[in-house]
């Protein structure tokens, strides 16, 4: 498997606080890589750095051989790295379908003027996006709530909707921010299944997650960060038996690591 994304010595300081310290790892095409760590370890910061939402103090992000460090988020999304958000970050006042249609922004062929004058290309775009959005929503089991205002959807649906929007942007790499948080075991099972299906569609996945059981089941490889630094990297079974990792999760290794 070829290296798709390479994080090299990424460091982010906020004033005196070091949120990410010299983090490096590679992501290979077609795998599921999880980033885990205790609360406040700097996982979200790492996502924001990769997605371009904040600029690193030092270090590089290389994607498909090109340096994308410090590019604005919409350019990084254009290159193929799309991020979903924790919790309920969606366009609340739109319907589920509209959310996903809007998320097709990068697939627009029509020019701004063309859109204004409703050119043939703009109409074609619109029709294509609607079909594609409906297809994605069906793939994620959301076809029942197509026309519901997104703001009134239950939590589980919202997270799926977030993933649907990420998929609409046609990503090479999808960054999933805590996709299983707050789910019961059944919901988690379904969501894990879904993540696998994403990979089958050719999307490479990085996810940040608390739910160790799910992470251990689904990940090809795991990166563990603690207090902003990477302390371990490897396959799930290697991580489960890693002394340093157990140390970091001291006192709750059994429950937390699912061993």
């Amino acid at each position, binding site marked *: 498997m070829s290296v798709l994304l390479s994080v090299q010595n990424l460091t982010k300081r906020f004033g005196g606080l070091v949120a990410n310290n010299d983090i490096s790892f590679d992501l290979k095409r077609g795998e599921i890589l999880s980033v885990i760590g205790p*609360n406040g370890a700097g996982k979200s910061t790492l996502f924001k750095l990769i997605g371009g939402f904040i600029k690193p103090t030092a270090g590089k992000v290389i994607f498909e051989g090109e340096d994308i460090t410090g590019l604005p988020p919409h350019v990084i999304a254009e290159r193929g790295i799309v991020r*979903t*958000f924790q*919790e309920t970050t969606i366009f609340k*006042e*739109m319907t589920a379908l509209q959310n996903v*249609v809007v998320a097709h*922004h990068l697939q627009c062929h029509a020019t701004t003027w063309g859109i204004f004058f*409703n050119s043939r290309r703009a109409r074609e775009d619109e029709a294509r996006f609607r079909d594609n959005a409906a297809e994605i929503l069906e793939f994620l089991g959301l076809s029942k709530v197509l026309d519901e205002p997104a703001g009134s959807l239950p939590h589980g649906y919202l997270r799926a909707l977030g993933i649907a929007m990420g998929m609409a942007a046609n990503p090479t790499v999808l960054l999933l921010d805590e996709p299983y*948080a707050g789910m019961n075991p059944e919901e988690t099972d379904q969501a894990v299944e879904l993540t696998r299906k994403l990979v089958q569609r050719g999307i490479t996945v990085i996810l940040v997650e608390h739910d160790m059981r799910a992470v251990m089941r689904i990940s090809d490889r795991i990166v563990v960060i603690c207090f902003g630094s990477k302390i371990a990297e490897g396959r799930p079974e290697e991580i489960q038996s890693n002394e340093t990792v157990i140390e970091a999760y001291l006192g709750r290794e059994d429950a937390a690591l699912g061993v």
Partner: protein
Amino acid sequence: MTPKYLRLATVAVALLVFFAIIPLAFSASPYVLNVLTNALILSVIASGVWLTFAIGRINIAQGAFAMIGGYATAILSTRYGVSFWLCLPLSGLVAAAVGVVIGWPVLRLRGVYFSMISLSITEAVRLAFLNGGEFTRGASGIINIPRPDAISIFGITLVPEFDGTSPLPYYYLAVLILTLTLLSLWRIANSRLGWTFRSMRMNEELAASIGVNVAKYRVIAFAICCFIGGVGGSFFAAFQQNIYPATYTVNDSIFAMLYCFLGGLDYIAGPMVGAFLLVISFELLHPLQQYQPLIYALLMIGFMLWLPNGILSLPLFERWMADTAPRPEEGGRAEPAGAVSKVSSTGRSGA
């Protein structure tokens, strides 16, 4: 009738009334036509602000851009003899260009920060014209701005000269400008562009994450707003034939927002409904005119307390609006619910 056809029918009737019935009925009453012309162009100026609301910016700078448009027309026509018909679009472009230059840095600010700086822009532009020396003639302003001249092609007069004997030509021009403005806004709101703007209003970070160049689109929206404001200012300059640094103040910027709110931010016709309602009711209540700001203030407060979504949100208009974008349930502020669930979900993962 479905809401869509009801709206189409309403637009057709409105066009008929404005282009045919009103001119016929009031052709002998310059006073009424002047009042209506005023309301029409105030609707235009406020419609620009409506678009910045669409991207989630509270814009208290529109008076400044109307003033820039007005001065552009005043200077181009009195000093360089440029025809009004060229001045009108040029003034819009000048205002839009200034809007791009100022907007690029300033639009990075959100919420209250943006509204504070936009209010300051209204003041800054007033000061700039006050201190413009010979170029703007300071406090004495620019007077004797020529009326629009005739348009003829190959000796055929398409538009006669505005000779000032009747306000009717101004009225027609104002109706035309408002029609074009609303038509453009309707296209924007119902196209992908409108959805992109709305997505930015709801969450700029999320919009960026799906690949929207947020900085670019918000400058586009702001530039269109400024263009519309500049065109409105240009019209007023030729209509009143003079302009001073005091012609537009912070209050004018606030009133433009007020019209939007009064009509309803969710509706393209909102600014127009708001502007007509206020302008005409004040003409009817002539004796109360000295209390205009006071009544505006009470209206603003009253609307925020009891009708925060504007007149067009009243059940009376439901038949027209039934199929427009879905709204979350009344009073459903998202933050408290989100905060509670945040607490509970961290509680769960900690357990």
